[in-house]
C-alpha cells in the first residue's frame, strides 16, 4: 500500500462521482455523484495525511470535509423539496431557467 495506490483509488472514486454528477438528471442522483466525489477527496486527504505529514492538523481538514458533505446534503434535500413543491419535478434541466 503506497501513496500512489491510494491516490489512484481516490481518483477513480472521484471520476466515477464526476460522471454521475454530470450525467444524472434527477437532483438526488446528482447529489449522490457529489457525495462520491467527496468520498474520493476524503480518501485522498487521508492518504496525504498518513504518507506525507501525519500531524493532527490534517485530521481537522478531514473533519471539515465531512462537515461540508453534511451541509451539501442538507441543502440538497431542501432544494430538492422546494423544486418538487414548486414544479412537481426535480429534474435539474427544468431548473435551468434559474440561471442568468
Amino acid at each position, binding site marked *: 500500500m503506497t501513496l500512489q495506490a491510494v491516490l489512484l483509488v481516490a481518483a477513480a472514486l472521484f471520476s466515477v462521482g464526476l460522471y454521475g454528477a454530470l450525467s444524472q438528471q434527477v437532483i438526488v442522483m446528482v447529489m449522490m455523484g457529489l457525495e462520491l466525489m467527496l468520498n474520493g477527496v476524503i480518501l485522498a486527504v487521508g492518504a496525504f495525511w498518513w504518507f506525507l505529514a501525519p500531524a493532527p492538523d490534517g485530521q481537522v481538514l478531514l473533519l471539515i470535509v465531512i462537515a461540508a458533505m453534511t451541509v451539501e446534503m442538507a441543502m440538497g434535500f431542501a432544494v430538492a*423539496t422546494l423544486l*418538487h*413543491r414548486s414544479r*412537481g419535478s426535480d429534474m435539474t434541466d427544468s431548473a435551468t431557467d434559474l440561471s442568468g
Partner: protein
Amino acid sequence: MGVTSMLARWASKSVHVLIVGVPGWDESRMLLEAELDRRGWRVALSPADADLLAVCGLPGEVLGAASDLLWNQLPGPRTRVSVTTPVALSALLDAAVAHLVDDSWQREDARARSRPVAAEDPRPNTGEHESMSHEDMDHGDMDHGGMDMPTPGGIPLAGGGDDRDGLEMDVLNVSLGPVLPHWPAGLVVDCVLQGDVIVSAGARLLEAASAPKEVSEKAVTDVTRGRRRIIRLCDDASNLLALAGWQTAAQNARRLRDDARRGADSTDHAAALDRLRRRAERSVLLRWSLKGISLGEIGLGAGTNTGTATPDDQAAVDIRHRLIGWLREAAVLAGTSSGRQSPAAGDSDPVREAQDALEALPELLRGTDLGTARLLIAGLGLDTAALAQTHERTHD
C-alpha cells in the same frame, strides 16, 4: 428422522393461528381465541407468520375467496380449520396439530405448490396480503393512473397526487382487511395511500354465507343480552387497547371478556372491570398517545349511546373517553346483576348505528395516517354482525 420429528414436536407446542373473522360469527372467534390462550398458542398477525388458518364461521363467496388467497400465503407447514360450532373445538385443533407435524403430508403439500405463491395468484397484487379482494380492485374512482401504463411484474405503477404538504407524491391503492389483527370481521377499507396517509377511502362489508344457526335466541340461551353486551364491550376495548400497543391491558380486557362468556361471578367481574377502567384512566402515556384522536361528529351519533358516556360532547367522541366509557358501562352492567339488559342497548338500534358508522367511515379516515385510522376504526366499535343482518334484510 429423529431430528425432524423432534423439531416438529417442539414446533407444535406453539402454533400460530391466523383467524379469519366472518361477520356475525364473533362468538366462534372468541371461542377459538379463548382456546388458543388455554393452549398457549398465538394469534398470528399476518399469513407469513401463521401455521394454521382458522376460518371462524361460514364466509360468503368473496370472503371465502379472500381466505383461499390467504391460505396460499401461509408459508407451510400449514393446515386450515373451519370453526363453526363450539362442539369438539379441542378435537379439531388436536387434529390440526397432527396434520401440522405430519411431515409426509406437508412435504406433499409443499411439492404441490412448488411454484412461488405469487405465480399462482392470477392477478398479482402490490405484494401485500391485505389487498386480497381483487374483484373490486379497479372499481369506482380509483384508477391506477391510466390504463396504458406499463406494469412491471404485473404491478401497475403508482400515479401521483398532491399530499397534505403540497408535495406531489405517489399514491398507492391498498385494501385494508378483511383479515387483519383486531379488525372488524368482514370489513374492507379500500384506501388510496400517500406514504402512510390515507388520501381517500371507501368501506364495504364482505358477507357471511349464513348467520350462525339459531344465534338470535336459542344457542346462547344462558347468555343474557346484558352479558352479551358486556362481552362485546370488552372485546372492543381489548382491540382498541391492543392497537394502542398496550398488550397487558388488552390481554386483561380479553380475559375479562372470556370470564363473562364463562359466566363468572358478577361482583368480582364488575370489580375487575372497574380496576381495568381506572388503570386506563390513570395511564399518562395512553392519554398522551390517544390525545386528539377523535371520531368528530360521526362519533356523536354513535357515541351518545354508550350508556354512561360523559355528558361533555367533546369528550364523548374522543376515543380514549369512549374506551373508558365502554369499560364503565361494562362494569355497571356486570354490577347490576347480569339478568337485566342495559338501558342503552335497549333503546338504541345497533343496526342503524353500525350502518351510520360504516357510511361515515370514509370521511373519518381521510387525511389520517394508518395508525390513527386503525385506532379510529377500533374506536367506532363497528358491529359487523348487525350490518350483516341489514344485508340479509335487503336481500330478502
